């Protein structure tokens, strides 16, 4: 594409997004030297960067993320980390070929495992020094172009030897969009947040038997500058905060008893008030302390009631990934193809995937739910494509999937869900036309146990996120909080359980849902969040298994007495 064409295409299709609430009141937009350097070097590279006998770049993309990062943690009332840093990262992507077949999405033998695309991330200067930034862009673009040429040659060679089946384009065409949402970024004082972590983690000193209790906080805020050769241009805020509060104890039999909660917000200031956090931490401490004496649960297959964040975590881990139209890259040697398959839902569009009363959607425009900010809401995705609200399931039938600019079968265009390196959800919502009040859900569940002649069932109230809990062996999400319930309604806390693998067909047999829904947010990467809004759910059949954990003997001497 020549420069002239670039400008023309851009001018024809520009439209502007405005009015998204920024971190704080936005100052008059001032052209940053960053954008200037990016524009000038991009223009020059598109026009002049050529290697004789090789294809020129048809697409170049620059992104500079300017961030302040805070990290604070405390254990049992003492600060462990108190860090504040600023950084700028630069990412350059160059593609050669064309939209239908290009240098992307291909893992070469020499780069196996190091990522499929010809892009590079490095740090960029913090000073707004046009010359230095442009010089770095020049070298990064040069390196990315040379890599793109080499990958393209190998990809072409590999595909010449393969019979063509289902030939899909590599990159979708989208109308260029300019998005300008500058935000004044006020860095936080890390010591203030370290003090809060200290206060929260001190809650764990009040309960006996707790070995360790931690509060961990991060906050990343700043501005992302994005530019590509198609005329996309975006200045958008980066804002994600994360809190994790966890405690561990050891049961007399050596099993680790643990519980935790995580909260993801756009900013630490959006966290619930300290009084709420402290009471949650105290309840967590009490549960862990009491959990040591709880019996170990039993393997179980049958109806399960998932409540609150447990329901949200299960949907996020087991259902949301099925809604993503991801496409794994091809590889020079198919044996070294990076794992990951396309979702089985790709072939189920039009078919029933949820119970008939259910609908589901992804609504990045939902900025608040139940009076709380929704961290997963966003205006444009990481490819600068405006986020669309997408109806995914109606009356149990799958309508479409969430897409990025990497086309999938029958899904040629992006619906603004290219986030964190692939198609991702923003704000996934699920509801049932036949929902009943949450208070009536337990009665329904007990009825079900009686009909199925089950001597007991499980109500699961909290499960761990991926990577939250280590060393528990293979299986589904680890259960943090569950009670064994008998048909007469009696509840008994149990420990040492996890969910088994959840097949994609399990969601067709959700029997009941509550009217009340839980908002739960989680991290996609260091700066990107997603949310789910889901009801409490009764599944007709799920597996519950014991965790297989190699227990350590409890400490030899009792804990030192607290001062």
């Amino acid at each position, binding site marked *: 594409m020549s420069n002239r064409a670039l400008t023309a295409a851009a001018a024809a299709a520009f439209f502007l997004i405005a009015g998204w609430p920024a971190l704080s009141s936005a100052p008059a937009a001032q052209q940053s030297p960053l954008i200037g350097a990016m524009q*000038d070097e991009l223009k*020059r590279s598109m026009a*002049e960067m050529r290697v004789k006998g090789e294809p020129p770049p048809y697409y170049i993309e620059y992104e500079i993320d300017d961030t302040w990062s805070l990290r604070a943690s405390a254990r049992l009332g003492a600060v462990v980390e108190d860090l504040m840093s600023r950084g700028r990262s630069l990412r350059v992507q160059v593609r050669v070929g064309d939209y239908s077949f290009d240098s992307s999405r291909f893992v070469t033998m020499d780069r196996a495992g190091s990522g499929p695309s010809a892009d590079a991330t490095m740090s960029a200067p913090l000073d707004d020094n*046009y010359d230095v930034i442009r*010089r770095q862009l*020049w070298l990064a673009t*040069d390196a990315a172009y*040379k890599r793109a040429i080499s990958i393209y040659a190998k990809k072409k060679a590999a595909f010449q030897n393969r019979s063509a089946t289902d030939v899909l384009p590599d990159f979708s065409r989208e109308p260029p969009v300019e998005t300008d949402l500058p935000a004044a970024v006020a860095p936080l004082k890390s010591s203030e947040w370290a003090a809060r972590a200290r206060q929260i983690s001190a809650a764990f000193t009040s309960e006996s038997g707790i070995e360790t209790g931690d509060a961990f906080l991060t906050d990343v805020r700043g501005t992302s500058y994005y530019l590509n050769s198609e005329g996309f241009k975006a200045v958008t805020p980066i804002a994600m905060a994360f809190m994790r509060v966890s405690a561990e104890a050891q049961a007399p039999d050596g099993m680790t008893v643990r519980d935790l909660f995580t909260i993801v917000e756009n900013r630490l200031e959006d966290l619930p008030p300290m009084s709420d956090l402290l009471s949650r931490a105290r309840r967590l401490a009490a549960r862990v302390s009491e959990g040591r004496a709880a019996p170990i649960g039993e393997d179980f297959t049958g109806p399960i009631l998932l409540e609150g964040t447990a329901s949200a975590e299960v949907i996020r881990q087991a259902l949301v990934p099925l809604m993503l139209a991801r496409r794994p890259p091809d590889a020079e040697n198919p044996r070294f193809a990076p794992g990951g398959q396309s979702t089985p839902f790709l072939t189920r569009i039009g078919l029933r995937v949820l119970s008939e009363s259910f609908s589901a959607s992804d609504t990045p425009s939902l900025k608040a739910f139940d009076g709380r900010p929704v961290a997963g809401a966003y205006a444009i995705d990481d490819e600068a494509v405006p986020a669309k609200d997408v109806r995914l399931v109606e009356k149990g039938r799958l309508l479409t999937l969430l897409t990025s600019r990497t086309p999938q079968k029958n899904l040629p265009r992006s619906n603004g869900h290219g986030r964190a390196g692939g198609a991702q959800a923003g704000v996934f919502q699920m509801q049932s036309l036949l929902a009943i009040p949450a208070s009536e859900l337990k009665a329904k569940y007990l009825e079900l146990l009686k009909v199925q002649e089950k001597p007991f069932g499980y109500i699961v109230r909290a499960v761990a996120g991926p990577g939250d809990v280590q060393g528990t062996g293979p299986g589904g999400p680890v259960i943090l909080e569950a009670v064994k319930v008998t048909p007469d309604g009696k509840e008994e806390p149990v420990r040492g359980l996890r969910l088994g693998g959840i097949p994609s067909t399990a969601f067709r047999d959700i029997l009941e849902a509550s009217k009340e829904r839980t908002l739960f947010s989680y991290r996609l990467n260091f700066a990107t969040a997603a949310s789910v809004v889901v009801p409490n759910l009764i599944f007709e059949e799920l597996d519950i298994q014991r965790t297989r954990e190699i227990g350590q003997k409890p400490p030899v001497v009792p804990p030192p007495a607290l001062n």
Partner: protein
Amino acid sequence: VFFHEIFGHRVEASRQRNSDDSQTFSGKLNQPVLPSFLSVVFDPTLQKIGNIELMGHYAFDDEGMKARRVTVVEKGTLKTFLMDRAPVHGFDRSNGHGRAEPGYLPVSRQSNLVVESSKTVSNDRLMDLLRDEMRKQHKPFGLLFDNIEGGFTTTSRGSANAFNVLPNVVYKVYADESRAPELVRGVDLIGTPLTAFAKIMATGDKVEVFNGVCGAESGGVPVSASSPPLLVSEVEVQKKAQSQETPPILPAPTQTRK
């Protein structure tokens, strides 16, 4: 760096304990290991040589032992090893060289290595000796290694017990004195330890210091090595690893935006 890699790492006591290690010097106690005009001391109490501060200076090692000067080689004869608190045959006490980067377990490591020579000549005279040696060996030129960026060595039995020293300023010196030395690039010094020591012929009189961070099993620790110039009658050089990347396609951006 030459001494640090080739000699220093092989007198760390922890390497004499590991049966997988080559233990180049284990059986050489009280035997000549270097030319008799050379002594090697490790002295963490030394703060400076001339005006240059030494990075291997410390008052106590990372096992809390007081730092002290240790003469490892006296007039060419191996006297002891660098010791941490783990004894080896014949040496049951630390000599203040148990070192580690924070977060690692201390093992015996180097401090300030100082090579002392009793056979020094002026640096000019050393150049004359170099040219004499070239003529004797019928070589048209010799090499002068002026500055070095680092090096590495392996001491395990399973691999080649060799060293690489990575110079970054090298001159080609011609036997013909009328030809000026030429700056050259792209060579590394390689070899095996015992052969290399045997080839040291003489030393200059101007001591130079290399300060650096040495990385090994207990992490990176600051060290220094000081030595006069060495005249070595024979050493192998190999071509440096080289990138295959072509220079940038476009010239550097020069225009500063108004």
